[in-house]
């Protein structure tokens, strides 16, 4: 029974991945490349210690982003503003981290807390607008992304809090040694793996636990499934909307930290800015489930990293972007189909159980 359920859950993403592999193969053949050879090169390249480190690092960042989006999805809220939330949160976090000279075990928790707070406040604006003014969060969060970019540019101006960095761009002062999040190395790789990987795993567990094992999580899911039934059951929908948007923003505040505290040590205007959209794709791929999202994040990171080899074999790397797009589209369709099949099957089962035996 249990294994059957797991198989059911895996069916849709497997179908979607196979479909996109087939489609990518067709495109590869159109480019005159041998698909089997190309894919095996990608896999071989991804299996090197350096690539594995890179994949784990990307996946950590993606995981935070996807969980932030998934918290919103569980409530039928579409937080497109993860980009703005994490960029502002990372910028402020970097300023705080650069200014603190405490030992790491004090300064790092402070930085994490500040970043979560900033992300959450930024999302809170959209939450407030939705609850008290009826503004759709789709509109407000995406608008707030642009405001965040402007605000960051203002904060980082050398006349304000920023400095000219080594690469001759504007950024925050470099975080001292003590404020950096320690990583670890895979043997044979020069690239350290983010220590925040473990924080991501912890977050995944907390997300699962809160959603499935606490009353708060039940209230939250019930609003997502049926606002009218939630109201009748005594859930304060406005308050839940507020809470979940704040939580989503708080998790979004973590997205930039692995890169900031584990590799770059400074927030510059060139800091990557679109992990939020990747998070939407991965949350869809992982069906808002913490384990599903982990697989989705790893798959996405694998495709990102292994695509680097394609240029060397003479295939445009963009084919991987096509493949990622196809995976998301087909997984959404496949989930809907399996959901319908499941409902049909249950209705049949109920029909059989309630039909009268002679």
């Amino acid at each position, binding site marked *: 029974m249990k294994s059957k359920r797991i198989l059911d859950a895996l069916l849709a993403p497997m179908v979607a991945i196979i479909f996109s592999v087939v489609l990518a193969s067709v495109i590869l053949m159109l480019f005159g490349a041998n698909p089997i050879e190309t894919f095996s090169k990608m896999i071989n390249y991804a299996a090197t210690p350096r690539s594995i480190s890179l994949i784990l690092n990307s996946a950590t960042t993606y995981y935070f982003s996807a969980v932030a989006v998934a918290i919103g999805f569980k409530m039928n809220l579409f937080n497109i503003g993860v980009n703005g939330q994490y960029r502002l949160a990372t910028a402020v976090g970097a300023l705080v981290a650069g200014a603190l000279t405490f030992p790491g075990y004090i300064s790092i928790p402070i930085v994490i807390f500040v970043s979560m707070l900033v992300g959450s406040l930024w999302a809170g604006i959209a939450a407030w607008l939705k609850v008290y003014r009826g503004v759709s969060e789709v509109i407000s969060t995406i608008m707030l992304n642009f405001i965040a970019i402007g605000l960051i540019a203002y904060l980082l101006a050398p006349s304000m809090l920023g400095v000219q960095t080594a690469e001759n761009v504007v950024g925050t002062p470099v975080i001292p040694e003590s404020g950096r999040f320690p990583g670890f190395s895979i043997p044979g790789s020069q690239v350290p793996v983010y220590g925040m990987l473990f924080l991501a795993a912890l977050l995944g567990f907390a997300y699962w636990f809160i959603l*499935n*094992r*606490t*009353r*708060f*999580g*039940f*209230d939250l*899911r*019930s609003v997502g*499934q*049926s606002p*009218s*039934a939630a*109201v*009748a*059951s*005594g*859930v*304060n929908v406005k308050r839940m909307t507020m809470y979940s948007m704040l939580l989503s923003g708080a998790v979004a505040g973590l997205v930039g930290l692995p890169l900031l505290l584990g590799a770059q040590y400074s927030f510059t205007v060139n800091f990557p800015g679109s992990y939020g959209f990747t998070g939407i794709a991965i949350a869809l791929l992982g069906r808002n489930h913490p384990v599903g999202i982990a697989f989705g994040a790893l798959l996405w990171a694998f495709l990102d990293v292994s695509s680097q080899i394609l240029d060397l074999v003479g295939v445009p790397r963009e084919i991987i972007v096509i493949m990622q797009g196809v995976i998301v589209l087909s997984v959404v369709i496949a989930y809907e189909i399996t959901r319908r099949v499941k*409902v049909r099957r*249950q*209705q*049949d*089962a*109920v*029909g*059989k*159980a*309630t*039909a*009268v*035996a*002679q």
Partner: protein
Amino acid sequence: MIAVELSGIWKRFPGVIANSNINLIVEQASVHAIVGENGAGKSTLMKILYGMQKPDEGTIKVNGTTTVFSSPSDSIAAGIGMVHQHFMLADNLTVLENVILGSEPKRGLSIDFTKASNRIKEISDSYSLGLNPDDLVSELGVGDRQRVEILKVLYRGARILILDEPTAVLVPHEVDELFEALRGLKSEGITVMFISHKLDEVLAIADEITVIRKGTTVTTLNTKTQKVTAEELATLMVGSELPTPETRGSTVTNRVVLAVKNLRVESGQVKPHVDDVSFDIHAGEILGIAGVEGNGQSELVEALMGTKLSTGTIFLNGVDATNWSTRQKREAGVAYIPEDRSRQGLLLEAPLWENRMLGHQSQSPNSNGFLLTPKAAKADTQRIISEYDVRTPGLDVLASALSGGNQQKFIVGREMSGEPKLLIASHPTRGVDVGAQAAIWDHLRDARARGLAVLLISADLDELIGMSDSIKVLLRGRFVADADPKSVTPQELGNAMTGAKAVV
């Protein structure tokens, strides 16, 4: 002329037989009712006739020719149309657009709206359905929407209509309008198959009635040549006597559980939804609210539950609960059977045991306040399933997979759990069959004897008169009359509901 003839139909599912040796003859231009309990095999039979399922054995003859249906499009081609219980209409489209959706008349590349409009007017007029092709569906009432569904199948050329529980969603005067329309259809040669378990309605409209029990056709009665009563029909259906909703002896105490004073719910218009309503309910008392739907019942209930803004005072067991949230009220022992079970009573996409928690997620056995306790909740779900005879293969099935009657039984079971002090029940037996209805009544009576106070809102006047200790009539948001359930007749109550005349 025989429109439909089913002979020797068998349908087996692994382990069970849904239909066994069904024999049915439906005369053309007649209304033929099919009655039976929930799960007696009516739905399977209709699915077979509509081509959604294939019979294992037996033959189907339509207008004298033997036919085999492998999909609904085959049966549509044979002139059979199905009007489902749940409407499938797009709210923001007009009647015209809804009707032609999927079979648009083309003129070149564009849709020939003029032709379609004329055709719809023609059908509407000839069967006196009273529909205007240009009206928006969102502005139509439930009865009108149902006639749009009927028009849809007529437009596609159906001469045999299957109506699945058509009156379940209608209020009494809409039922009358529907029956008027069905008589019109009949006189124009259309055959109507009418599935229901509301026996008085069946007796009012059907020319012939076929009773199905335990998957097989028990008998067919002709209402023209035989004198049939609801009691006889019920006996044929369930094999036992028709239960009556009688409370037998008063259990009313003098302890006030709910005291409502000057309750008012504004509507945004001049006339409020609920206009200065005051009443008390005592422990062990069932207070019935009679009224034509839309006279403020829903708003009254929502104001009492705290899901709608209101003014006035509400005291629960002597404590001022006016400003309590819905959850506070629920935790204080207020149980709630909402009027719309699929929108307000259930999470359709969640398993049954999670639905056991809904509304009680802050209380034992579902949680300890902070953490959920799924094991205890599951055990209690199992108890509800067996005590309330919820027909389900297990507690992990999604709520949406259950039939409406079983969903209702489950909700009643859930709300009666944990010794509630006050039950606010809107249409507690809507959509359940006579057997289950009797079981729900028994549970209500037992709880009442243990001191439960009940606010009962029901469109079923027999239920209201039989169950209530006192009845108040709600008209345009105000209590216009009190009725003594011991002496009032449904006719008198009906008159008071429409404001025709006050009762004693």
